[in-house]
């Protein structure tokens, strides 16, 4: 059991929860969260928004019973964390674009921090640009502006329209599958398919790779979103 430090409502459906946690997560990883004893049966996989070795933060959208329960938690309440789980975005250098839609912005706060920290050491002068797409109200853009070099926000349109893949060495995406597929196709047209990494989402049960309910088809055969993913090469997912 871990102690909740804060759980703030950011907008109608979005919340950010900060929890005491000594494990450090890598960008793109997730935890299985549980704030009830038996029901609902399944814990909920939630992306890491931030992690500093002493606390971990989650940005989550209320979409069902589990996240509804999370939204009612208060500081000092207990929550069970299992993680960090899954694969992370690769630690790359150069010009990097992070493209997110909706709740997909969650992993890119930590991603920006970790990429910049690494780059400051190894390659001063390199760049992390964020592209954030929202259907209605933008979220946390000020926070993101503090960490990224450039932040482009699109509301109600297609965030994929905003990016020129040719300008980047690496492109990471997280959001609705249609958005990630459109981005991948755009990159492919400009010969940049190999630059793309995507973070997949799926319903999960065990969260650790044992039960196969979150399997996805990839060019390398079935993969477990929870264990082999959630981060995959775009080519592996979209070239079947």
């Amino acid at each position, binding site marked *: 059991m871990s102690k909740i430090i804060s759980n703030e409502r950011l907008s109608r459906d979005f919340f950010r929860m900060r929890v005491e946690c000594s494990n450090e997560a890598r960008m793109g990883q997730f935890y299985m969260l*549980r704030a009830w004893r*038996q*029901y*609902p*049966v*399944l*814990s909920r996989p939630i992306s890491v928004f931030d992690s500093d070795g002493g606390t971990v933060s989650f940005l989550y959208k209320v979409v069902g*019973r589990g996240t509804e329960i999370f939204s009612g938690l208060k500081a000092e309440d207990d929550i*069970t964390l*299992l993680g960090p789980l899954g694969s992370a975005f690769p630690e790359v250098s150069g010009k990097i674009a992070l493209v997110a839609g909706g709740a997909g912005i969650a992993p890119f706060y930590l991603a920006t921090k970790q990429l910049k920290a690494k780059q400051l050491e190894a390659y001063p002068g390199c760049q992390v640009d964020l592209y954030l797409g929202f259907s209605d109200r933008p979220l946390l853009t000020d926070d993101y502006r503090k960490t990224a070099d450039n932040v482009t926000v699109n509301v109600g349109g297609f965030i994929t329209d905003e990016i020129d893949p040719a300008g980047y060495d690496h492109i990471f995406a997280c959001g609705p599958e249609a958005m990630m597929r459109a981005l991948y196709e755009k990159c492919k047209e400009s010969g940049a398919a190999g630059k793309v990494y995507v973070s997949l989402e799926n*319903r*999960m*049960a*065990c*969260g*650790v*790779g*044992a*039960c*196969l*309910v*979150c*399997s996805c*088809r990839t060019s390398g*055969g*079935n993969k477990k979103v929870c*264990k082999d993913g959630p981060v995959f090469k775009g080519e592996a997912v979209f070239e079947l």
Partner: protein
Amino acid sequence: MTAADNCLKTEFAGVPFKNPVVLASGTCGFGREYNEIFDIQLLGGISSKGLTSSPRSGNEGIRVWETAGGIMNSVGLENPGVRGFIEKELDWLNGLDLVNIVNLSGHSMEDYIGGAELLNGVRLDILELNISCPNVKAGGMAFGVKTDVAREVVRRIRAVCKHKLMVKLSPNAEDIVALARACEDEGADGVSLVNTFLAMAIDVEKRRSVFENTYAGLSGPAIKPIALRMVHQVAKAVHIPVMGIGGITTWRDAVEFIMAGASAVQIGTGNFIDPALALDVIAGIESYLDARGIKNIAEIRGCVE
């Protein structure tokens, strides 16, 4: 071995178990993932992912859905095939100090026989014959509904299988007691029950079934009372041992199954509540026995008339 260990020690069809708690097939892979979380040698055994003679990539679409007190799954026997299992997983499992139960499924009689023959050449503790998977279009549960069909599969597998043979029964069987008796008649060394209940969920927005395969398998605490009744009925009817399965999430649940007549129990959906839930169940059974001066679970097995 301590006294505490002794109170949990059991035997199933001649195979010794250090305790009666086994992870259920399909919920624990081949044990590697849980072993990263706790030492799975603390378990009585593990029944690994259901195998078919050839690899299968499983079902399309949504594979898991929550229900009241349970979950539905439609994995559809995604597995590396018997050969893949033997190459990649078997030695590792055999190197562990726990009972290695290998679950075998199939979509045709030839498939079952082929798989059983392949497994004849290797070491394993118990072969669990899965005639109860509801999530494949051909085979699977079709072999576990009618007593005569089940009898024929068990007879033919028994004829070729050199291992201890435990048949995993479906709660969708027309007459689970008669079917269990048929397994006993045909030489099964034990039965395990129950697999998942054939069930349905409809997406009222899309106006279609949630699952590509229309139906899926329901498991979890929701169905525990039905599973317990079936274990009780079957244990009273056969002389071979029964492994109880169905929504066990607490030591109390496990003790209920043992009192209903189970020699061991499997934990399936419960692993998703907490990957180390089986350890709590083991510790809880032990405390229960200790507090009441019960020297071994055999003393309470089947005590409920």
